[in-house]
């Protein structure tokens, strides 16, 4: 309907009417977030603050996976491999030189061992690590993606899982650089809520811009119908590559945040359990929904904290349970299976939360795709003015 040129003089103005409240809503949401973060930063204890921070880091990773897999339908199980690359790169850049010496990391090249960021402002060092981590991950993704993005269905899931196993194997065995299974520790804790949420917002914005761009439409088109997309001239391989590489960059950039939050990097933290957790976030929220990924990340970060109370044991009347470690994983896995059976599209499917609330007056159409476009791109395709004329 946007393609039909409107002759009403007020049409242009009424189109922008949709964009203003949307912008206001975004500004309001950002202000509320900033107020909350300032409050959390000032009054939360270290443990709670860490959880608040982890929500943002997980949201970044989940949004990146949504971009890579949700938009294109090319399911990657190798995402955490890029997170590991970013985390190790960040750690190796920002470790104090005494921890990078010959004694601890004999395999490290001399220039990297001598590279000293201890004099830098912590946030500058962190930003630098995130950028380098992202670039290294994106470079690896370009090399890996060139062949792998030609595969489809579970073949690509399996091949990317192979990539994850290879990264894990290298991290576990390249002792001179990674210290093997012991991992790297003594990583300075540079990450704070502002850096983590800043990164998450950048990821969300990047994913959203990509989604509403021609590249994003090409991704969705190739996901929905490969043959039809190619028939209208979509370069499927290129759009998949863009999704894979941008997703890897964002994930790689989240790696240093995680390393500088936790203070250590070990191969076991970047393997199947983590992969599975991120996959649950994305599937729970709805494959292809950015806000769904954020919601999924929040739930999957907070839920284990509440379930941890269950693991410590409990008394149910006459029954008393001792500590049940791993119970939260079981509960989450079962919840995932139930979602798969009863609501395979997740909470949101392809839709986005938030801006849609402002657009109730707009035309309502059936089908996910039709609803995504107006909510994602206010004033671009369908304005409320067009709806009013019906």
């Amino acid at each position, binding site marked *: 309907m946007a393609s039909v040129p409107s002759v009403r003089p007020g049409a242009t103005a009424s189109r922008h009417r949709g964009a203003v409240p949307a912008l206001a809503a975004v500004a309001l949401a950002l202000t509320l977030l900033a107020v909350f973060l300032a409050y959390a930063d000032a009054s939360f204890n270290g443990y709670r603050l860490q959880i608040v921070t982890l929500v943002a880091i997980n949201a970044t990773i989940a949004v990146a996976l949504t971009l890579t897999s949700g938009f294109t339908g090319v399911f990657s199980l190798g995402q955490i491999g890029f997170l590991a690359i970013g985390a190790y790169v960040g750690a190796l850049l920002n470790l104090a030189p005494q921890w990078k010496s010959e004694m601890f990391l004999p395999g490290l090249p001399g220039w990297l061992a001598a590279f000293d960021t201890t004099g830098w402002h912590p946030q500058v060092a962190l930003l630098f690590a995130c950028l380098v981590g992202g670039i290294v991950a994106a470079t690896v993704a370009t090399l890996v993606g060139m062949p792998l993005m030609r*595969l489809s269905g579970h073949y690509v899931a399996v091949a990317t899982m192979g990539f994850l196993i*290879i990264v894990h194997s290298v991290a576990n065995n390249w002792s001179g650089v990674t210290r093997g299974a012991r991992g790297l520790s003594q990583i300075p804790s540079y990450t704070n809520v502002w850096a983590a949420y800043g990164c998450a917002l950048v990821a969300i914005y990047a994913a959203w811009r990509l989604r509403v761009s021609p590249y994003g439409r090409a991704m969705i088109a190739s996901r929905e119908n490969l043959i039809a997309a190619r028939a209208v001239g979509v370069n499927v391989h290129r759009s998949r590559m863009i999704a894979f590489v941008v997703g890897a960059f964002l994930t790689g950039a989240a790696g240093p945040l995680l390393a500088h939050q936790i203070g250590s990097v070990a191969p076991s933290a970047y393997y199947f*359990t983590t992969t599975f957790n991120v*996959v649950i976030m994305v599937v729970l929220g709805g494959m292809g929904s950015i806000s769904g990924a954020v919601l999924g990340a929040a739930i999957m970060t907070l839920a284990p904290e509440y379930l941890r109370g269950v693991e410590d044991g409990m008394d149910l009347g006459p029954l008393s349970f001792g500590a049940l470690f791993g119970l939260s994983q079981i509960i989450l896995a079962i919840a*995932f*299976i139930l979602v798969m059976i009863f609501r395979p599209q997740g909470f949101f499917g392809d839709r986005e939360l938030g801006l849609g609330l402002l657009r109730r007056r707009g035309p309502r159409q059936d089908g996910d795709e039709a609803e995504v476009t107006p909510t994602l791109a206010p004033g671009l395709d369908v304005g409320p003015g067009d709806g009013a004329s019906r």
Partner: protein
Amino acid sequence: MSASEFGQQFVNALGLGSIYALVAIGLAMVFGILRLINFAHGEVLMLGAFAAYYFAAAGLPFLVVVLLAVLTTVAIGLLMERVAYRGIRGAPDVALLLTSLAVSIALQNGALLAFDAQPKPFPTPAAIQEQLTVGGIQISVTNLVTVGVALLLMALLTLFVTRTRLGTAMRATAENAMAAQLMGINLSTVIVAAFAIGSALAAVAGILWGARVGRIEPLMGFIPVLKAFVATVIGGFGSIPGAVVGAYLLGFGEIYLVALLPGELSGYRDAFVFAALIVILLFRPQGILGSSEPEKI
């Protein structure tokens, strides 16, 4: 590598390949019919080994232990199919794959709670633990038993698949599920049969793995199922003979890779195995024996 060492490794590789083959057959059978890559198959193997452990602890004779463990495992496999997989039949490939990962994680953590993370010594009968020396080559009886049992079960499976009505129905369903159903084949029966056979073979593989490694623990299923999975990819997804060939190739590749690589590189053997997997997926996604259409863009 000396000749005797080569011979020793040969028997060793045959044993490892046999275990992979038993696991891979179950994966391939379920995949052929459901298009489900069942990651939880490794947990079925683990539960088979633990069932054997607890039946043996009850003081039963070993053959009875094996029989009971197999029956228990088959029951678990069928329960898994009923609870988790029946509800998502026909879902997209990736949804099936992720569900099986969830089942796998639930069972792993359940086993950690129930059996404790501490490895348990596997009660292998003393007769099987011996070493024979034949022509200067040391051969462990465990390896011989493993190879013998695997070959026997594979022969029985071949007879079942080619000579019985149910076996024919399974092959027909794997070929074309829709056409098979139109010919009056009950899909559920076929699926249940596939899970039952796969679980039984996994239980045997779990017991043989326990005898080979000497101890069992809740996370033991992960590595064999990954390797068996690579074997099914090498052989062509869903092809049972292909899975067996792939399993033996992988067993030999792995054993000789470790024997030939310098010590500091042998830790990378999983990386080599999966790099090979990726190369096969890229250049021959239908596997070496498979004939299905490659899914490439």
